[in-house]
């Protein structure tokens, strides 16, 4: 779960990290008042959880309260990289002399948290890594040892900064690790981490991504977890229903059990000349309602011309899937064609139910895909 910049900064501020004075609003008129209150140049930042926000026009500097209000009016309700802007953060413009980088993230290959520091911030860290690898330091944290200020100091020393800067940078790094642990974050990142003219380290930008599997330890995010600005309307519905649904830009709906099998089904549709409309994994041992609701959700995308259901029953029962499909089609306004591949537990009974309902059922995914593409008019045979 990605937090907004302002939420990340609020958390980091609580841990004593320097953050710019700022306030959020959804109201451009209030943006002007906030800017007037700061009494100097400000920056207006669209609160969207997407990288490359600055280049896409989501960060605007303003010298007067009126300019701040104008900028906010333009941003609120606009879209940055196709994500709607609902909230803007108005901050005092920082008097920065240097831009650095600090993050704590999960390294999948090493199976450890890694602290990443760079004296070159404000740019894509991957680019820094390939262009000037000597400007990046990495430290993999042993879970039993942890990462404290002393460990951070040891790490930062390698940069050969002044004593004050070494201490300041080390404190920031150690704080990020503490926040990552306390909040079950898979990413805590400051890019840039600003050094101001007074020598203070301030989080100019901040990102925190919380591990979705750890939300149960952070009840304050439970409701928050349901609201994602990056969700399409149907993805938002799916999230509330607990369905693993991702929207794609095609027109052949996909329902299956197991993430790998569903992805393979999408790929097969594309390989056969169709275009997959979505990913939907009903999971293992799905009940009738899950299948029915999933099918209705997939069919509710206007572009969808037909739905391919691919079930490999182990703990999932094919007869229950068949029942869910039939109920879903009965409850649907528009009768979109459906082709079903099912194999495994109770497949004969499932196939019988579907055949009686006039729904095509096939023993392998290739045939089901070909048939569905044919009957939905996507591929001429």
């Amino acid at each position, binding site marked *: 779960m990605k937090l907004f910049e302002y939420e990340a900064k609020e958390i980091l501020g609580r841990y004593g990290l320097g953050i710019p004075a700022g306030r959020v609003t959804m109201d451009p008129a209030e943006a002007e008042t906030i800017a007037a209150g700061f009494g100097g140049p400000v920056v207006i930042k669209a609160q969207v959880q997407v*990288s490359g926000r600055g280049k896409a026009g989501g960060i605007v500097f303003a010298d007067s309260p009126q300019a701040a209000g104008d900028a906010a009016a333009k941003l609120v309700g606009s879209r940055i990289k196709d994500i709607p802007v609902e909230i803007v953060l108005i901050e005092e413009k920082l008097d920065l002399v240097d831009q650095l980088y600090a993050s704590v993230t*999960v390294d*999948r*290959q090493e*199976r*450890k*948290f890694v602290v990443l520091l760079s004296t070159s911030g404000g740019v894509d860290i*991957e680019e820094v890594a390939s262009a000037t690898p000597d400007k990046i330091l990495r430290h993999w944290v*042993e*879970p*039993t040892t942890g990462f404290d200020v002393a460990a951070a100091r040891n790490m930062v020393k390698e940069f050969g900064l002044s004593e004050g800067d070494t201490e300041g940078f080390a404190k920031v790094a150690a704080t990020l690790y503490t926040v990552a*642990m306390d909040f*079950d974050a*898979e990413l805590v990142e400051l890019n840039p981490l600003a050094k101001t003219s007074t020598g203070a380290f301030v989080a100019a930008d901040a990102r925190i991504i919380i*591990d*979705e*599997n*750890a939300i*149960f*330890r952070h009840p304050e995010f439970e409701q928050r977890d349901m609201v994602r600005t*990056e969700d399409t309307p149907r993805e938002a519905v799916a999230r509330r229903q607990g369905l*693993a649904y*991702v929207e*794609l830009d095609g027109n052949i709906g996909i329902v*299956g*059990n*197991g*993430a*790998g*099998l*569903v*992805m*393979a089904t*999408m*790929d*097969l*549709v*594309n*390989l056969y000349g169709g275009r*997959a409309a979505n*990913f939907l*994994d009903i999971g*293992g041992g799905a009940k009738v309602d899950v299948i029915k609701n999933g099918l209705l959700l997939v069919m509710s995308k206007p572009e969808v011309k037909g739905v391919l259901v691919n079930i*490999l029953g*182990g*703990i999932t029962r094919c007869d229950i899937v068949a029942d869910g499909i039939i109920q879903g089609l009965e409850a649907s306004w528009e009768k979109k064609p459906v082709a079903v591949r099912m*194999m*495994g*537990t109770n497949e004969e009974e499932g196939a019988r139910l579907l055949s009686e309902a006039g729904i095509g059922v096939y023993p*392998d*995914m*290739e045939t089901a895909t070909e048939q569905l593409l044919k009957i939905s008019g996507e591929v001429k045979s």
Partner: protein
Amino acid sequence: MNSIIDAGSRVVVQGITGNEGRFHAQSMLRYGTNVVAGVTPGKGGQEVEGVPVYGTVPQAVAERGANTSIIFVPARFAPDAVHEALDAGIKTVVIITEMVPQKDSIEFIAKAERTGAVIVGPNCPGVINPVDRVKVGIMPGHIFQAGNVAIASRSGTLTYEIAWHITSSGLGQSICVGIGGDAIVWLDFVKLLEMFRNDAETKGVVLIGEVGGKAEEMAAQYIADTRYPKPVVAYIAGRAAPPEKRMGHAGAIVMGNVGTARSKVDAYLAAGVPVAERPSEISQLLKDRLPVRA
């Protein structure tokens, strides 16, 4: 046999009194697995499917000689269950549970590395060894048959799909390992390739991957660097997956340029590993490369 599970596996089912634990304990027993004990805290003294239940793993180890554990405990309690198994000296821990927090996985994996234990998963279908008829997992046993193909996979049902094709084509499996769909898993393709290299039963290897992370790229590198002596064929799910979206599995997400299907396919091809475009092509790719059978 240099296997993760074999005829010597004495299995304890952690969470045996829950619905899933009970169901799969029965299924494993039917397949032929030596399920020697179950563990549910506070429920010692019961029996499930004729298997004695203990309150703790150390009891199951002391009384029944358990050396392998399979975990069906809900996510918020699963990490404690793994630590308990490792502390009790269990050498192979198969974690079926999904939605385990990454931080917890990182912690128990670090412990497993200190104790020299093998962790399979989390969020995996487990392991099946059709040669010795041992199943420590949730896969339907009847789609597998004894043979010479080792399968390693990040997926569940897609593995069954491909295993079924392999079986239908007349080939069989020496072992099939579901490594799990999480971003953080201990047992990965490279470790398995190392094990399969020395396994006399295994003549060919199938790697079933998907978008996200670098597991396939690392496997390709390993195969090229070590001039891997056995034929390896691969499948990658998620060519149609958009970036920055989690495709069901916690680990199936393309981040920036990392984890795309294209990168994985290219890495395999560069290492001489053919990549099937459809799951059903795997068995033919294998037949073209396996040594002629006697």
